[in-house]
């Protein structure tokens, strides 16, 4: 399998002077094309920092990060913006939809930013809207939709540019259990039907159980790794619970 993401000895320090916190402590791992990887860990374990560093919205203090074979840690700011636009897709806890734009405009915005042309943007919009079943919501504004619908729109926006890697930061954090389940089914659809590569940060063992592989972080280091193998979601869930219990039991249990 082709390697989409490769991280080598990434270190991240926060603060300066006498108060310095080591948020990431020499992390190394890789994600193959088409893989669905979840990162779990307690609050302060460094999982959001890791995602931000991979998302290029924060810089690593040391180490190397390769996405699609490109070393992003060496890129300049403008090049990073273009890279983020072209190679990455994002799904955030707070949806991060622009409240002034319609759902259709929100989803198509990454294509507009890439200046792909109106006709192609329209075709792609219809394609992802059909795939994620939000074709009838395109003319609405975010405030007119439920949390689950908004997050599905955010997913559609994340995949519309067909990015190398989709990053999701606590995507179910603002959703109830029913909408969380719906969203994870959407993620699975993105993963299996559309072949997207996903890297997701979550607290929730149920959400984590949808992933192919789980990385557990503790004190800025990878503490454990769980592979699905041929196991069902329920089996994965049990495994996650036992790992989090060993980790310190700080993960949310539903």
């Amino acid at each position, binding site marked *: 399998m082709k390697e989409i993401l490769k991280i080598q000895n990434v270190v991240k320090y926060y603060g300066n002077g006498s108060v310095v916190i080591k948020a990431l402590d020499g992390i190394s791992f890789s994600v193959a094309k088409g893989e669905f990887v979840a990162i779990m860990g307690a609050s302060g374990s460094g999982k959001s920092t890791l995602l931000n560093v991979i998302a290029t919205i924060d810089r690593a203090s040391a180490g190397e990060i390769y996405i699609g074979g490109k070393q992003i840690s060496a890129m300049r700011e*403008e090049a990073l*913006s273009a890279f983020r636009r*072209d190679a990455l897709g994002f799904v955030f806890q707070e949806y991060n939809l622009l*409240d002034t*734009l319609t759902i259709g*405009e929100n989803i*198509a915005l990454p294509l507009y*930013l890439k200046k792909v042309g109106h006709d192609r943007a329209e075709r792609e919009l219809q394609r992802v809207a059909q795939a994620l079943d939000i074709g009838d919501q395109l003319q609405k*504004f975010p405030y007119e939709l439920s949390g689950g619908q908004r997050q599905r729109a955010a997913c559609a926006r994340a995949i519309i540019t067909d990015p190398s890697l989709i990053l999701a930061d606590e995507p179910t954090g603002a959703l109830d259990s029913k909408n969380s389940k719906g969203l994870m089914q959407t993620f699975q659809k993105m993963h299996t039907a559309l072949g997207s590569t996903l890297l997701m940060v979550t607290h929730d063992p149920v959400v984590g159980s949808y992933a192919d592989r789980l990385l557990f972080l503790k004190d800025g280091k990878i503490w454990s790794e769980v592979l699905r193998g041929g196991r069902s979601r329920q089996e994965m869930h049990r495994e996650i619970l036992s790992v989090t219990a060993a980790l310190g039991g700080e993960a949310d249990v539903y």
Partner: protein
Amino acid sequence: MFTKLALRNVRRQIGNYLIYFITVSLTVALLFAVNNIIFGDEIAKFAQGMTEMRTGLAGFVVFIALIVAFVLSYATSFMLRLRKREFGTYLTLGMTRKNILTIFVFETAIICLIAMGIGLVLGLFIYQGLMAIFMHLLNMEFAISAYSMNGMLFTIALVTGIFIISSVASALYLKKVSIYDLIHGDKKVEKSVKHPLVWLIITVLTLVVCICSIAVFYWSVDEIMMKGMNANYLFLSLFAFAGSMILFHVALSKSLVYVLMKRKRFCSRGTHIFVLRQLSAVLGSNALMIGLLAFLLSFSVIAANVCFVQKAMQELSLNQNCPYDIVYSDNLYSTGDTGKVPLPQAEEVIESYKHIEAKYPYALYTTGKNDFYRNTRWSGEGYAGLTDSFMSVSDFNAVTQPLGFDPVVLNDTYLIVANLPEITDYDWENFTFTWKEQDYKYGGVTREYPSLAYMYFYVVVPDAAVEDMKKEVSYMAYDITDGEYDAASLRQALSYTVEREDGAETYERTDFRFREYSRQQENATSAILVVGALFAAAIFLFMAMAILALKTLSGLSDDKKRYQILYRLGTGEKEQGRTLFAQTFTFFLTPFAACILISVPTAMIIKHIITLSGMAVLQWQIYGIAASIAGVMTLIYILYYAATYMIAKKAVVHR
């Protein structure tokens, strides 16, 4: 505790309060400077009639202050909205709305007090600057002017009034707003303007009305000056222009984005759709304010143009209306005059002021008939007593040659000298004047001579023709030695009392017209007009810019989140900067662009009026004045915009 909290808030919010602070300081400075002029004794010494105008000007300043109060209330409510989350949090912590209002009013009071202090100090300098302009316009030497205590008290009273009005506006907002709205803001984003197509049609219609009203105004000026038509159409076109200007901007604000969003390809390029949606919300909800700002800015542009051109025209107008230093005309119709000064005695009085270098006598004669007037609109009912006036060609040449004109030669012809442009439009060429069995054919009609007699027109004829006519008015034009003199005092010395026929009233009059006295009068008028126009233009410009800036800045907390999303989606710093520029510059430009363009028709109309008045020489100067006013206003506007953009960029663009 509230005092401490308010003081800490002022320190913490100093960045947010900056534009508000600058606006209040400049407003106080301008109000104080103008109030010093109104209430000070300096101008009254030089400008006759100033004392009488004081009440009127104070009323004008109060009117301006009311507009300022309205605008600052609007600005204060922006400041309130800018911090609504903070106030929402206070409410959830158990503070009452009264507590929050106390904190906010205390904060704004601190800002206003500091701004008033700085504004008053700044006003001292602006006052001296305005006085320097004033003195220059009065042709007087400038010296540091004294300040007026009344002016300062009036300014403080006005600013206090403005502050109370804006506090009441804040109280009303705080009273009705819900905690949810304070904390979460307005969740419902304006989906789109209702009936955008109707607004688009109104935009086009009001633009047509606006252009037509300018055309009608242009035409009315023609009709009034050439045919003596009444000014109904002129006023109608002015009202139509003002109304259409406001409505055009309201409709444009509501339809501009709609039109652009119809262009799908344009929308799907870069951040265009983002900018358009941002503008849609801000323009749509502020359409009326933009309309009013556009009106105020247009008023500033037109008023400044008219006043500066009036000043530029002054000398030419003086040459046209008072070609000689002093002109005497005997009043053959007056009765009951007492104390009338005989001419030889009057000349002695003049000599006591200035040496008479030359005298040019001339006279007007009448046939007692209206052969010429019959060809004009001044005939028939209501004009029975109006008879033609004639001047002999030798008199005419004697009085016009010293002014630099070539002598006129008439061979049994007549020459009509017109004071009104419409006289030249009548059909004179086929008219032959017959007097004492002698025919005088048309020899021309002209407006190139200055005004020697105060009537619509008179006819210059060969000397032989006036021999049998009755003398109507005798004139004596004087050239006196150059240099300043007390023209007002000389005029007073040569004035006398006239009793009306019913004996009920008397009034002062003089048979002399003094060029220097007219100059002083016109200087005072144009000085007041120019300074007044400058003041109004500056205030309106600052108000407009403050509103636009504060409106932009009050939306920054929401914009910050939106630009963060753009950043995460891969919009770089430069692209974000360009997007913010497109968003804020369009908002700033909407009420401003048309107002600056108004300079062009304004200059054209003024040029037309001046051409009709026979002062074509000023034509290019008018375009220069219009360009200068537009340039200065644009420069100030750009500076204010640049400050706003830099603050906004620092707040919302992610790096």
